[in-house]
């Protein structure tokens, strides 16, 4: 018996479709049910439908808006810093890397270490008695900022995130830089274009699409940040480092407000989806 192509397609698609239905379809249904219900860990199996009350609760919660603002700021600032630093490293080091490919491996190490682990490592590195960073501050400057205090913690985690993920931007820019056709550069060089002008007028425009992609990906990753902040400071002093992901986690596991956590997750999904759609339509226009 020969199968029709459409039957063959369905068979080929079925493993993934079934897998997704089981692991995402079912949870989506649960999200919707629990998002509109009241439930706690005690009454987990008997959610009580209460309509849109959870959503009202979330939208009236100032902590939710603080978390949204935190995530937005964190995402934008880290994405910008990572792109600027990554672009500089890629362009400036490209001539060296052409002869020493192994340099790339050294620079991408931070990305291969778990963000959760990096967060824990900073706990040690910044510790006031055991940490080398405060030690050298005292040694050389006679004082040391308290990196994890309310006033400093935001800068600290921005630096930690930036140092871990600049390699990602660097890698994308390096690839884009190396892909610029050599004859464009040579033609410009014949015309006597200076290196700085070459960068602004010729190389940077060629890398613009990559700049956009890298910035967008890094923004999304910064926006949804959880692991490194959570392992370094948790929700931070006075909840000052509560990202959207941490807000939902805390609402769910710490406070056991399942319906509210689910409603917040649905709202986050809507926002993330909107950002994604917007970003992709912008990128399509650029191309």
């Amino acid at each position, binding site marked *: 018996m020969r199968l029709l192509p459409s039957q063959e397609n369905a068979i080929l698609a079925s493993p993934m479709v079934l897998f997704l239905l089981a692991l995402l379809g079912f*949870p989506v249904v649960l999200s919707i049910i629990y998002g509109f219900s009241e439930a706690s860990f005690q009454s987990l199996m008997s959610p009580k439908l209460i309509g849109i009350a959870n959503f009202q609760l979330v939208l009236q919660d100032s902590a939710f808006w603080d978390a949204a603002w935190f995530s937005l700021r964190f995402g934008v600032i880290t994405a910008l810093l990572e792109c600027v630093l990554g672009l500089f490293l890629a362009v400036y080091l490209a001539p060296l890397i052409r002869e020493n490919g192994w340099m790339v491996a050294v620079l991408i190490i931070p990305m291969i*270490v778990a*963000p*959760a682990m990096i967060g824990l*490592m900073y706990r040690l590195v910044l510790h006031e008695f055991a*940490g080398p960073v405060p030690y050298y501050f005292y040694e050389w400057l006679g004082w040391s900022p308290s990196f994890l205090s309310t006033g400093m913690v935001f800068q600290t985690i921005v630096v930690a995130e930036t140092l871990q993920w600049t390699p990602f931007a660097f890698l*994308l820019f390096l690839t884009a830089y190396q892909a610029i056709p050599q004859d464009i550069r040579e033609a410009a060089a014949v015309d006597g274009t200076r290196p700085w002008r070459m960068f602004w007028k010729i190389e940077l425009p060629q890398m613009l699409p990559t700049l956009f992609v890298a910035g967008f990906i890094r923004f999304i990753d910064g926006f949804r940040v959880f692991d490194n902040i959570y392992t370094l400071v948790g929700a931070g002093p006075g909840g000052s480092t509560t990202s959207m992901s941490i807000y939902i986690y805390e609402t769910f596991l710490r406070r056991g407000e399942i319906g509210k956590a*689910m409603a917040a997750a649905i709202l986050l999904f809507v926002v993330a989806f909107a950002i994604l759609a917007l970003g992709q339509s912008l990128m399509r226009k650029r191309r």
Partner: protein
Amino acid sequence: MKPHVILRWFVFVTAALVMNFPVIATFITALKAPAEIARNPSLVVHNPTIENFVTVLTVSDRLNIYHYLWNSLIAASIGSILPIVVAFPIAWAIVRRGYGRNILFPLVVNLRALPLVIFAVPLYLMFSVVNLLDTRLGLGLVLAVVNLPLALMLLVNAVAEIPIELEEAARMDGARLPRLILRIVLPLCRPAFITTFVFGFITAWNEFLFGLILTTQKAVPMTVGASFFFATSGGGVQWGVAAAVMIVAALPPLLLGLIMYRKITGSMVSGAVKG
């Protein structure tokens, strides 16, 4: 050497040291005895010792690192092999038949941009119903979801690079679809399988949020287990031991990643640019 070459080397060394600073400082601390950590927080070790690593690698009541390593190994293996198995057949259908190209493919690829916490809460509820909470299988299945988007993308790229003439020739010889896919397409995709596996394994090993929410004891992965050493229980954190735990926890993905760094960087770039 010309001055600007020296300056470039200087920038490289500085960037490498600063970006890898937490790892370097943690490694140095792991080489200090407890007494030295109290006296000397600097980056110079006076009496290097492997004492901390011995403590970590010796099973005790307080600490069984092999338990966490084993959990991570199993969960990350499931989480990196399963996506390849389920994505490979449909990758062929997407490339050669255009099946699911307009809806299913973008849907799956976009999944990876969503905050994972969105899935964490409903998955917790689902797992408590089907008894997958705190199991390596349950954690592995979720990690497979995390890895599916990139697996699908890399496999679609791999199938698209196979010359169609090869498949047509096999068709001419009367090969039916199952034979065609298993005998022609599958062997040619082997390099992509390896890349996808390595990348997925590293991602899965490094994942933290799902391990934190979906496991409590039996299936706790290494990333979450490592954070337990910082839970101050009376005497405060034993920094030397904690540092050694972090180094051991970070080592498997690090070794894998450094051995395969060309493939890793390649798939990172293609994953980003084509997504």
